[in-house]
């Protein structure tokens, strides 16, 4: 579903040039669960933003579901995000003035879904993350874990194909983090492609495939596909269990 070929993302800061991504090539198939790890500043978030069509590669090709993202207009990339991609952020990014259900309705609001259908679908999505009784609460009346579950409901409500989570548990304690990961994994189990950026080795271990980044490059990829350059790993049938995670990963 996802194909990156020689992707660079370069920032110019004054005279110096920062390479947030250096020649990254990567393929992710429909239904995979991928964890991205690496030290701070290694380009994990940048990679996620490129995958989510929020950012464009400076160089290289990015193909999403057969369409080359670099050639799409702003409008087309917005439409792609709206229909096919869900985001979950470390800091939740809920609008404080809206209730939980109002926040979950937000993507449908801009998609022009009628009010009644919107409300129904939002309530169903909240129920799916176990927050039906909190539907009328505003973010400042919810715990961090609950906020993140609202954000997950919001990301899921448009039924995307790809869910991108940037340190979704970074602001949560263990119990809440476990709950959040269970929800994300449950969505993955229903066929969603899931990419999670994390600093937590325990969380990374739960993924079938772990990508380790350093300095804008992919250092290790436990599930790299043959057609991606053949550095490691053989082609596996889609959905087949991957090899147990490499020993160096998840420390």
């Amino acid at each position, binding site marked *: 579903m996802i194909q990156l070929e020689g992707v660079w993302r370069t920032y110019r800061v004054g005279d110096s040039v920062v390479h947030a991504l250096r020649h990254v090539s990567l393929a992710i198939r429909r239904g995979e669960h991928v964890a991205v790890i690496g030290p701070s500043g290694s380009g994990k978030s940048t990679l996620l933003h490129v995958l989510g069509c*929020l950012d464009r590669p400076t160089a290289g090709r990015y193909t999403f579901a057969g369409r080359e993202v670099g050639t799409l207009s702003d409008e087309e990339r917005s*439409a792609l*995000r709206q229909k096919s991609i869900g*985001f979950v952020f470390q800091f939740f*990014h809920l609008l404080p003035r*809206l209730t939980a259900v109002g926040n979950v309705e*937000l993507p449908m609001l*801009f998609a*022009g879904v009628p*009010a009644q259908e919107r409300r129904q679908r939002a309530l169903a999505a909240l129920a799916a993350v176990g927050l039906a009784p909190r539907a009328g609460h505003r973010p400042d009346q919810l715990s961090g874990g609950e906020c993140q579950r609202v954000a997950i409901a919001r990301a899921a409500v448009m039924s995307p194909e790809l869910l991108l989570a940037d340190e979704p548990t970074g602001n949560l304690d263990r119990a809440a983090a476990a709950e959040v990961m269970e929800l994300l994994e449950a969505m993955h189990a229903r066929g969603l492609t899931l990419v999670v950026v994390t600093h937590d080795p325990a969380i990374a271990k739960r993924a079938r495939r772990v990508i380790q980044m350093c300095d804008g490059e992919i250092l290790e990829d436990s599930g790299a596909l043959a057609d991606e350059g053949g550095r490691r790993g053989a082609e596996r049938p889609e959905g087949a269990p991957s090899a147990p995670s490499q020993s160096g990963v998840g420390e």
Partner: protein
Amino acid sequence: MRARDLLLFVLGALEGHRLRTALSVAGVAIGIAAVVCLTALGEGARRYVTQEFALLGSNLLIVMPGRVETSGAAPWGGVTHDLTLADYVAVSRLRGVRKTAPLCVATETVKAGERSRPVPVLGTTAEFLEVRRLVVAAGEYLPPGDPTQGGTEMVLGPKVARELFPGASPLGQVVRAGAWRFRVTGVLAPRGRSLGFDLDDVVFIPVQTAMRMFNRRSLFRILVEAQEYGAMAVTRREVLALLAQRHRAEDVTVITQDALMTAFSSILRALTLALVGIASVSLAVAGVGIMNVMLVSVSERRSEIGLLKALGARNRQVLGAFLAEAVVLAAAGGVAGILLGFAAVRLFVNIYPTFPAVPPLWAVVLALTMSVGVGALFGVWPAQRATRLDPVAALSRR
């Protein structure tokens, strides 16, 4: 995105920062209230003048000697004949004429016993009372009869009566004007100022006496009331033709009440528009206020904008949302300003009940249009900034 959803979303955002919203609404409201009040005053002045003219009678023609071009400049070359009492009599016999009164005016010192003061003296006939819609408070007005016969009757305006005969009835008393003696036959009811002329502060005497007294051979004016409003133009031509025939030259000017009124009215309307222009300055200031509030709002809500984009909101939807926010702010200010303006005008009318100050409908429509326009105009730039925001940068900042 549906219009109703957009509006609710925008109202929610505005409610998020109530104080700022209220202040920028107040800014626009003051500007709009100024527009409403100033147009009400200008329009009030116009109505006031129109009312005054209506009191004079709208089918009034005014005949004056000499050919005055509309510019009021030099008279037409050639001999100008006097406008005589005989002319007046001839005009009064025309078919289209209902009532007509001659006028001969000069200022003279009038004396009653010890008291004396200079007063405008109007020489005219009994019909003047009706032509100018005056009312007698006591006694009688000038007697009807042959206008070429003089007389010693005098009618006092209420102010003159008060000042010459304080606390006493002037009826039957003797008043001197120059070398002439008159007997007071009547006092008028107060009428107030009319077109800059205080009809309470004049005295009336028979026209023939006035012409002799002031040594005039020509009348100052002949006031003609036409039979019908609709036939004004015909009557005017009749009067002109009659006098041209009598003078063997076209040497008089006939103006209609309407022409004067239209001229006044358009001057005052222009004045009103000038006032609107002045009031608009405060609207521009309010517009800058809105722009400021929206800019603050955009930079404060960077992460919200980033989020909306991440969720798939199109650029034009983001633009629309912020533009709508500015317009809603300004329109709310417009409505509040109209209410405020009406309240202020009402207060003013309570203090000066004779002044017919009413905000005209066109001003209300204009004020609303202007407020929405101000919102749209000053909201565009902040909204564009919101649109141009890079979602990655907007989301990462915390």
